[in-house]
């Protein structure tokens, strides 16, 4: 599952660089430019991806490490 989440992160970055709507002048709902709505979708996708990452790839257990520098 954790590999799947990292694949999602890479996919998100690839989708962020899309070419499909680069010059699209249409308005969705009559007021949102496609280029803006697409990237609002990317923002929402990022939140979902990071939610999955916190569920399945969390790097630490939630216990607090024993507390307490200079080389």
């Amino acid at each position: 599952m954790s590999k799947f989440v990292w694949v999602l992160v890479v996919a998100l970055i690839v989708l962020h660089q899309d070419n499909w709507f680069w010059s699209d002048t249409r308005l969705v709902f009559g007021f949102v430019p496609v280029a803006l709505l697409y990237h609002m979708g990317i923002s929402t996708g990022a939140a979902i991806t990071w939610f999955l990452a916190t569920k399945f790839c969390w790097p630490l257990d939630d216990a607090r490490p024993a507390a307490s520098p200079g080389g």
Partner: protein
Amino acid sequence: MSQLLIICGYLALLLLLGLFASRLFRGTTQDYMLASHSIGPFLLLMSIFGTTMTAFALVGSTGESFKQGAGVYGMLASSSGIIHSLCFFVLGVKLWKLGRRNGYTTQIQFFRDRLDSDKIGLLLFPVLVGLVIPYLLIGVMASGTVINKVTAGIVVPATGELKDATFSEGTFPEFLEQGTNGFTGEDGSRGGVPKQVASLAICLVVLTYVFFGGMRGTAWANAFQTIVFMILGVITFVVLAEKIGNQGSLLANLREIAAHVPKEKLTRDHVFKLQFFTYMLIPLSVGMFPHLFQHWLTAKSASSFKLPVVAHPLFIMIVWAPCVLIGLWATSDLVNVPPPIAANQNAILPWMVRKFSSPELAGLLTAGVLAAIMSSLDSQFLCLGTMFTEDVAVHYLGKDRLSDRQVVLLARGFIVAIVALTYLFSLAEPRGVFTLGVWCFSGFSSLFPLVFAALYWPRLTKAGAYASVIAAISSWIYLFRDSGYAAEETYTVTFNLGGAEYHVMPVALMFAASATTLIVVSLATKPPGEATLRRFFPDRFA
């Protein structure tokens, strides 16, 4: 006058909150600098988001979208939503764990231990401070400009007469009121609060709650201010839609205005594709922001990071999407931005609010912009005070020679000195400081390979780290000079391949120089010692 009263009311409210937070101060160094590692998920989300969002999120986003069209949301906002959370997840959680285990307060303490080198501090300290100072100046100068613009009168072009000014000529000393072209000139105070006075007021308010409340006061103030600027951004969007659209409902207003926006502004044709791609490296700067490192260490537990990681992209969308749309509306013939305002894109949002809404809303929006500025300034002031205390004074005097109370006193002294110096620098109005923002971020981004390798690559050596920092800063200085010291606002590095011309952001070259040098020099030099590897990579070198 009502704008000024609203601004004063907001600042008074903030001071009260700061004084309330200071009553919770426990008197220890840990509490002053890191809130005793007691910050839970909600407060961590709000303080991190407030710190990373500057005035650029409200004023700059509107101006950029006015200039470049809808593509700026993808270039600046959705990319940050992906990359910021990536940094919190991949770097923040791990640094928090190491910080708790080893008692770190600053980045330099971590790098000194990880690289087994005391002198890395001497190289990194001036670099980090040098990159934060212009960032601070932008905030201090922007706050003065915003308050002056919203309280100043409007000059009637035909008669040269001043209308709706808050103060009459002679209220303040002459040197504060008169610009090169007099009281009503472009740089005169025009009957508003003089910029120098407004900046001083903001510095004093921030200094008060940081001085007394430390990190806990800063976290509470950040949370409050983040809520303020998020709500006021949405209110501004709705009010402007109603006033510009002039239709029956919000949806009808939005459709009416959108129909008048020029087609070319709805696309991303204004941005080069490789420039769009390499812009994605700029949000990596959060991985090396010293003030964000300090916020990460305040977390109560690892799970405190989960909410900030998930909600950060959505919060960016809530703030940025309305502002980008407002910037697009400004390009329509329903708004007709006059040429002097269009030439200064940061003036677009304040001008629209003044033209289309009441003085009360203008005052509230100004409070929102100030909230965005101050929620970054406070963390940066506290962070620099902490760095001077921990990385210089305590490190070289010796921790055993100073009591906890003396360290807090020292930190407060450094914070007062930094605020005073920043304010004095701002009076000189350094040329082009506003164009320095992206260069500061690029500098921090070019140091990202260092922090990433320190956490995930055991083979990173002391020499590799030194070479990486030197390569990052050398390439930064070279490109900064090539851009005419940021005089060329839309500077990109251009190169030809196979007859085609490509434009990349300068950060791409800095990042490549830093990463390549780090890898090559580390592989060519002696690996770190066993003790260091066991300490920082216990799973692999147990």
